[in-house]
């Protein structure tokens, strides 16, 4: 029931690096993937910057038959899953089919695919809508396509909880492992950078209208004025620790030790937002005291009222400047359902290398009493325990605690 669940493989697609190592090097050096949109002309829109993935050639990695029936986010996810399996040293075809499942987070499905078919429908007529529309855009598409490509017939799922979804998916995957499925692929990879997606993102009221890539997304900074959207995320191979040890997995990045999720009270209720309770539940679930946490990866909304809520939750649990806090997502933009999964991967890489990546570009606002890691990476050996926070629009709060795996290798 309480089997230890570990991460043994990472697949990363980020605006500042395709593949976990490229991305990790970029984050440590503070290299940003944010720039003016190129996928379409952003001139008519108030927000013009995004974290775009460049240099991704789906046709080099995926069968030709898959390309016309998949959105960009699915193509990124299929390649991400391949990378995660390769990193884990797992050949899915060699495992029993019911011993592997997929749980991904989604936020808006294959939105660009949907945009193109809506355009066909309204500009040309209903008979122009693609035979692939019925599944290429929907929220379950990545879990379905990953399961098909890799022959994974075990329990699968899809969760949508805005930008908290990446953590909720990993928690659901951990649950399935504890119920007896030895290996789960989980996380989220997202992309909706198309005019129709952009129009919808603008109405969130949370986008930065800055035009300088270096200063457009500045959480916890006095200049914070919204975020920059990006595309990408991460997929993780999660395994029962016993199973990973038995097969001599090449890496055990860490243990998914704790999880907590809450939802904010109704606005105007006067009740405290739910983030602190989510953190406390994750710590309790892991049996970890606040003093044992070495770093917090922040949600980093970059809106003053939301940054304040996060600062208050962190200081309530850890005390003022009680724990290093970082938000490397300033170099990628916020990746929606991919955001928290990428932060989780980043936290595991930080543990591997005993280094906290910086919150690039940010000058901490004076009235936030947190120890924000800015400028250069901070060496911290040993870095054993990391807490990842994620929030979704509407009131979603999730927290996952990962820690060094202390089990014995057989």
């Amino acid at each position, binding site marked *: 029931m309480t089997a230890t669940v570990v991460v043994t493989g990472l697949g990363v697609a980020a605006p500042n690096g395709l593949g976990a190592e490229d991305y990790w090097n970029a984050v440590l050096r503070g290299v940003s993937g944010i720039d003016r949109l190129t996928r379409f002309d952003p001139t008519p829109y108030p927000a013009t910057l995004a974290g775009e993935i460049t240099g991704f050639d789906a046709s080099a990695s995926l*069968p*030709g*038959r*898959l*390309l*016309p*029936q998949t959105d960009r986010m699915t193509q990124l996810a299929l390649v991400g899953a391949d990378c995660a399996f390769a990193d884990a040293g797992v050949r899915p075809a060699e495992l029993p089919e019911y011993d592997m499942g997929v749980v991904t987070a989604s936020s808006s499905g294959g939105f660009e695919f949907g945009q193109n078919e809506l355009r066909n429908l309204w500009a040309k007529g209903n*008979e*122009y809508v*693609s*035979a*692939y529309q019925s599944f290429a855009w929907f929220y379950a598409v990545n879990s379905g396509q990953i399961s098909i490509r890799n022959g994974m017939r075990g329990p699968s799922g899809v969760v949508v909880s805005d930008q908290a979804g990446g953590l909720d998916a990993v928690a659901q995957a951990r649950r399935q492992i504890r119920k007896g499925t030895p290996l789960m692929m989980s996380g989220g990879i997202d992309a909706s950078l198309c005019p129709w997606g952009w129009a919808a993102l603008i109405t969130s009221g949370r986008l930065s209208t800055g035009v300088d890539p270096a200063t457009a997304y500045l959480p916890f900074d006095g200049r914070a004025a919204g975020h920059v959207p990006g595309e990408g995320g991460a997929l993780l191979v999660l395994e029962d620790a016993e199973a990973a040890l038995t097969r001599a997995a090449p890496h055990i990045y860490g243990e998914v030790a704790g999880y907590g999720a809450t939802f904010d009270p109704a606005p105007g209720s006067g009740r405290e937002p739910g983030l602190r309770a989510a953190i406390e539940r994750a710590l309790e679930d892991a049996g970890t005291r606040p003093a044992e946490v070495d770093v917090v990866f922040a949600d980093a909304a970059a809106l003053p009222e939301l940054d304040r809520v996060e600062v208050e939750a962190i200081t309530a649990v850890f005390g003022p400047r009680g724990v290093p806090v970082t938000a490397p997502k300033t170099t990628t933009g916020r990746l929606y359902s991919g955001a928290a999964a990428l932060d989780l991967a980043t936290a595991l890489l930080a543990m591997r290398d005993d280094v906290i990546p910086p919150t690039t570009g940010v000058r901490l606002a004076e009235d936030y009493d947190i120890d924000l890691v800015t400028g250069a990476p901070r060496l911290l050996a040993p870095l054993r325990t990391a807490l990842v926070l994620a929030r979704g629009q509407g009131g979603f709060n999730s927290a996952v605690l990962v820690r060094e795996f202390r089990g014995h290798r057989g």
Partner: protein
Amino acid sequence: MSNTRFTVDDLKRILSEGSGEPEGVGLREDTVDTEFTEIGYDSLALLETNSRIEREYGLRLDEELLETTTTPRALIRLVNDQLTSA
């Protein structure tokens, strides 16, 4: 009466545009009698292809006949039959 003819090349182009290139040989002169599923095109690819043929050639292909059309040659014949009777 139309002079338009629907050829192997037309079908190959429409298959490719709508459903991509399969692994293996795909559609060639020597695979026109091979089942679509054997050359890498599933039922969805056929639905997409039929829909594209209908749009491009202004046809409405008979649904019942399509159900028993499983090879490129049979589909090409069906399209040409409907083109000449149109």
